[in-house]
């Protein structure tokens, strides 16, 4: 039942290849444009930053510059979708879906139009731009919307695959991307399917559930935990909505402890989604790391991850304490 996930053989090397997830999006969008002539791209004055530039160069007639107007960005996209197009919209996540949430709710989610909302520069690792530009609430905002699919790819290779698939999924979809380079832990051969979670590393003591680029930190944390005799299972959850309940519950049922990590508000975010799932179907001790009811601040990305205890060393400490303090709690369910 479990899909084999091929990890990058250089994963644990110091010079593992790094690339921002937005770069994978840029390649995927161009590829989707080649495959499907209905794909159009709209950007709110951030074409290079959000990596729509490759699509724009290849298909200038299907690229629409919207100016700094995020409400119009998504509502024009809704109209284009009604006319049979598959619109990709991009901006920084703090502006879209941050500024235009109601327009997304009414004209895309309720209206059930296959508009793709690409929010780049999510998370604290945006860095020096500071809290205004570090979007942390997007997962919560988008996963609460009926009809909406929510994705947070783990690396650039996966982001490229995700982009190609969401051009064809026929649904309103939000995809969260990062500004900063992060290690590529998957390979071209790794499976990716919207709605699926993947076990990257097997273990019996705790399920480390990660979304987006935090999955890399979990893989590194799992290696550190092994040195302390803890066998952590790492589950990568690139689709936050709908959750792959089968894979997640199977892992948690086995380990009896769940631990989530995300570069977002844990309240309402990915950790919130897992808490809801486990509360409904498999009550299990759960530890969530992420942003805990506070904003980010300026700093270098690596400094910020350490400061907010989202680097793999801090995560390993948290997970070790969690495993030490909390008995397994799964038998009988």
């Amino acid at each position: 039942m479990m899909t084999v996930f091929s990890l990058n053989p250089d994963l644990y090397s110091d010079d593992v290849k790094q690339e921002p997830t937005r770069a994978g999006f840029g390649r995927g969008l161009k590829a989707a444009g080649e495959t499907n002539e209905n794909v159009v791209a709209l950007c709110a004055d951030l074409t290079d930053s959000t990596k729509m530039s490759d699509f724009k160069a290849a298909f200038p007639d299907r690229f629409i510059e919207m100016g700094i107007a995020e409400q119009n960005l998504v509502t024009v996209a809704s109209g284009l979708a009604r006319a049979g197009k598959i619109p990709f919209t991009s901006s920084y996540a703090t502006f879209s879906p941050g500024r235009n949430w109601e327009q997304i709710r009414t004209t895309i989610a309720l209206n059930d139009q296959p508009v793709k909302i690409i929010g780049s520069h999510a998370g604290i690792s945006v860095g020096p731009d500071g809290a205004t530009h570090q979007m942390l609430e997007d997962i919560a905002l988008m996963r609460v919307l009926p009809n909406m699919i929510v994705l947070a790819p783990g690396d650039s290779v996966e982001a490229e695959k995700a982009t190609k698939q969401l051009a064809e999924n026929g649904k309103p979809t939000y995809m969260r991307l990062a500004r900063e380079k992060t290690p590529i832990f998957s390979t071209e051969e790794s499976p990716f399917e919207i709605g699926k979670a993947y076990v990257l590393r097997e273990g019996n003591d705790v399920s480390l559930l990660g979304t987006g680029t935090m999955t890399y930190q979990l893989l590194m944390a799992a290696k550190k935990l092994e040195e302390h005799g803890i066998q952590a299972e790492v589950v990568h959850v690139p689709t936050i909505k709908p959750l792959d309940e089968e894979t997640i519950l199977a892992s948690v049922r086995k380990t009896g402890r769940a631990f989530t990590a995300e570069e977002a508000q844990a309240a309402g975010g990915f950790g919130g989604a897992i808490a809801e799932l486990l509360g409904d179907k498999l009550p299990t001790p759960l530890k969530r790391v992420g942003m805990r009811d506070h904003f980010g601040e300026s700093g270098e990305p690596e400094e910020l991850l350490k400061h907010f205890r989202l680097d793999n060393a801090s995560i390993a400490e948290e997970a070790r304490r969690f495993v030490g303090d909390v008995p397994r709690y799964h038998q009988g369910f």
Partner: protein
Amino acid sequence: MGLFSIVSGQQLTITQLEQKANDVRKDIIRMLEHAGSGHSAGPLDLADILTALYFNIMNIDPVKPDWSERDIFMLSNGHTVPVQYATMAERGYFPVEELQTLRKLGSRLQGHPERTKLPGLETTSGPLGSGLSQAAGYAYSLQYLDNAKHRWVYAVTGDGELDEGNIWEAAMFAGKYKLSQLIVFIDRNNIQIDGPTDEVMPLEDLRGKWEAFGWHVQEIDGHNIESIIDAASMARAISNKPSVVIAHTIPGKGVDFMEYDYKWHGGAPGVGIPNQDQAKIALEKLRTLDGKITHEGMA
């Protein structure tokens, strides 16, 4: 003049269109009275524009609501949807009897329009300011992506709705791309919920604003069917700009005790929408065209 005659084999005269608009108003009164909530003034004052659009201007086929060659209508001020439902029913999209399900559980006629509920609706609207953008998106597709020069996108916005920033984002966008297949009617009835538009948030110089955004602007009597048809015709002839028609209307048009009074924008029975007694009086006035017809037989 649209292709209505080709599609349906009939062409209503101006007098017949006026009578049709009157039927739409009667439908609206009955719907609102039965629903027990909603909005009165806007739907009543838009009856002439919607009738002209659905019965004359637009190239549509009620039997094939998704016909690929159709013109598009998007209602940006979704709260006035009773007028759209009534006009669609009169036009043959669905039975007139279904109008009485407005706002009821399980109805296709939601309190604000939802595309996925009712064939023939092109969008979902209600929260103000986003319908114009959707119309602009569709018009962009026709003009730049589909090479469909023979199709048109018509939209209606309120005037209070123009307070929304999203409207001016759309206005700038349509101006930049010279979306000449986009034709917008503004229901300039001078009222919004909190009072006269000029007190709540002044809109003038309204013509100057749209002109400054690169639009072709016309101003008409929004109750004169011939003027509405002519304005649409003129707008279609403008090939290098989007068109806006500022349609001066009387809120609550056709029911004298509602006309000009912002308190009839909407609300509860007796205070915003007609209660049973008020509906009876209103229907009587509409049946006799406010006393101008002295004998029965018109309805």
